[in-house]
């Protein structure tokens, strides 16, 4: 990572921290959910770089959410950090298991198979009346290392938790992108055979990416479950996955930061559309995506890169 990027990332994080103290509650709550969803998008980007589009991220997202709700309810665990960790790990575990199957498929077959797996979880949850079926169940309010905040404090505490988790994830993922395994994503997309000839196992590379994206999606789902205080099977429905793909297109797969910026932009546009056009909000959202595809085919993240290139062109 170049210095300018580090400074940009650092100041963005600082700005987000300061925002936690000054912004009104409803904006913090919106940003909490947007950043938590950004983790799922980051997971999609990890796979996107290898040419894989998952239409089943909702599987891990929902796993993370339900793990938090059930561990909180039956296990009596209330510590937010522990719950998020358990949520993420249970989703990563699922990703590891289904990865043996999924890592063999590419393109539309990969997308459809991942979608099918998430719909199996959806079907199971809908059938389970003891977990509230489609109505879902409430998540108990979390504590932070023994500190049990309420109302505004809880909101802000969750926001900071999300920020810390997101910053950690962003650092680790950008390190991963620079590592050999991460850098091989683009060769995998372009020519798998060559990568194999170089002595690398493509299916192992993809399996690792699946587990990483599962972990990220599960963590995102766990954080959203805590922020919303409720989980339901819709978290696993294919439209939820579709929404994450939508945000990925909006954000672009160019950089780690794009995932969070894109997610924030998406939540803001949707909330704005809800207020402006209560019965036609999908129109506005769809138009935004259409315009993004037409004029920014590499997503909002490409704006940052354009700035970079502009600077480099001036000072060679």
């Amino acid at each position, binding site marked *: 990572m170049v210095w300018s990027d580090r400074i940009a990332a650092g100041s963005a994080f600082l700005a987000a921290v300061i925002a936690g103290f000054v912004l*009104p*509650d*409803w*904006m913090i*709550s*919106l940003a909490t*959910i947007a950043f938590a969803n950004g983790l799922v998008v980051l997971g999609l980007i990890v796979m*996107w770089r290898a*040419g894989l*589009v998952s239409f089943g991220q909702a599987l891990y997202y929902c796993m993370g959410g339900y793990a938090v709700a059930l561990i909180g309810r039956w296990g009596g665990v209330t510590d937010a950090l522990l719950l998020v960790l358990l949520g993420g790990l249970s989703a990563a575990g699922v990703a590891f298991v289904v990865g043996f199957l999924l890592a063999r498929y590419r*393109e*539309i077959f990969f*997308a459809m198979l991942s979608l099918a797996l998430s719909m199996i979880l959806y079907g199971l949850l*809908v*059938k389970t*009346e003891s977990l509230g*079926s*489609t*109505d*879902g169940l*409430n998540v108990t309010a979390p504590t932070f290392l023994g500190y049990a905040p*309420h*109302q505004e404090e*809880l909101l802000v505490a969750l926001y900071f938790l999300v920020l810390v988790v997101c910053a950690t994830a962003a650092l680790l993922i950008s390190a991963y992108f620079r590592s050999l395994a991460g850098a091989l994503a*683009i060769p995998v997309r*372009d020519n798998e055979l060559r990568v194999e000839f170089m002595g690398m196992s493509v299916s192992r590379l993809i399996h690792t990416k699946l587990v990483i994206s599962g972990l990220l999606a599960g963590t995102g789902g766990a954080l*959203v479950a805590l*922020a*919303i*205080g*409720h*989980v*339901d099977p*819709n*978290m696993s429905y294919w439209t*939820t996955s*579709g929404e994450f*793909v*939508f945000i990925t*297109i909006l954000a*672009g*797969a*160019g950089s780690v930061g794009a995932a969070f910026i894109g997610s924030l932009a998406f*939540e803001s546009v*949707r*909330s704005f559309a*809800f*207020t402006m056009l*209560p*019965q*036609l*909000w*999908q*129109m506005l*959202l*769809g138009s935004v*995506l259409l315009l993004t*595809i037409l004029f920014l*085919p*590499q997503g909002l993240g490409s704006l940052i890169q354009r700035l970079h290139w502009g600077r480099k062109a001036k000072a060679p």
Partner: protein
Amino acid sequence: MLFAVRTPGHAFLWFVLFSLLDVAPIQAQNVAPPGATVKLGIVSFLTGPAAAPFGIPGRNGAEIMIETMNAGKVPTPFNKVGFGGSTIDAKYIDETGSTANVVTEFRNLVQRDQVDAVVGYVSSGSCLAVTPVAEELKALTVFYDCGTPRIFEEKPRAYVFRVSPHATMDNVAAARYLLAKKSDITSYSGLNQNYAWGQDSWRDFAAAMEVLAPKMAVDKVLFPKLFAGEYGAEISTLLTSKSQVLHTSFYDGDLEAFIYQEQARALDKRMTILSTTGETAIWRLRDKMPNGTIIGARGTNGPLAPDSELNRWFQKIYSDRYGIPPTYPAYQMAMSLLGLKLAYEKAKTGEAKPTTDEVAAAFKGIEFEGPSGSVKLAIGDGHQGISQTAYGTYRFNKEKNEPEIVDVVRFPAECVNPPAGLKADDWIKDGMKGAKC
């Protein structure tokens, strides 16, 4: 650069795009009157499959009620302008989207738009998710249509109210009506959507039948997918059944599709259909709805509403504006708004606006007469309404060319609702003790 040449399929992009571009019919938007002082958030399905049967009638009910309240034209005792003299400024929000979305928009209403109260929610999932947030934010919230009894059973609530009775009475009354009107039945079947509403409806109905007629056999229990739209296999299965009655909590598109499909194969000639929410479809199905179908309206709403000045007035203003008589979600919305209005006016002692706590205290245990008769917030620690309910038999009157419901039986509130402090499920299973019929 990263999307170049081998993007993982442009088809996906279009797929996502079109699924999000799913456009709803354009409705006239409500313009808030100037100088408004009481702000209300109205949340209901404005798009998606639940919009037509529930969301839009609910929204329309809110629109017309708020308009007439602001004009001070609601009959006595609701004739004060707006809420206690202050006009109402309503903001309409769509309930569609994930739970995260519903909760975020609820927060936006309370914290960004600073509404004085939120009235809304059709889906029980939305209601369950909004409840803890409403309590946390101390935001006065009135649910109008969602039916799950869990809301006030899990914990006592301070700021959440529901004037409309919960779904338990729908199925208990359905069982009572059925047994009163059809003494010769020996077995029954069920066709319900495979999601919380369908599962709960069937569970309550089957449990009530078990108590009231223990010898009755259950034959086919079918749970097709929600919004499946095609019921060929289910109809074939039911045609092999000897049951005389089919219980269904289908609504809107699913109900209409099923009725059309079963008529081609004369299922309704073999067994009576008992449709717990059938009232929402009668104005659209008209003579397509089989005569003899047992119809419920989730309380005494629509054609089952008692004949009163207030009811005739509501029927008239609603039909004049929207060209179709009000169905039960419109009634539930009207009742919820009237309840809130009364509580607000009871809490307002001087000129100043009452605080949320004062309105909530005044709301608790309130009792009033509205277009669907009398309602009392008797259970859920004074937060959950109970009212009488009714079932009837459908008949399409060819001379008048309009649907009618005949053979109506009314059940008092205490006959079909659990007493205060008891869980609905347990009450039914333990033999519905204390029911006063």
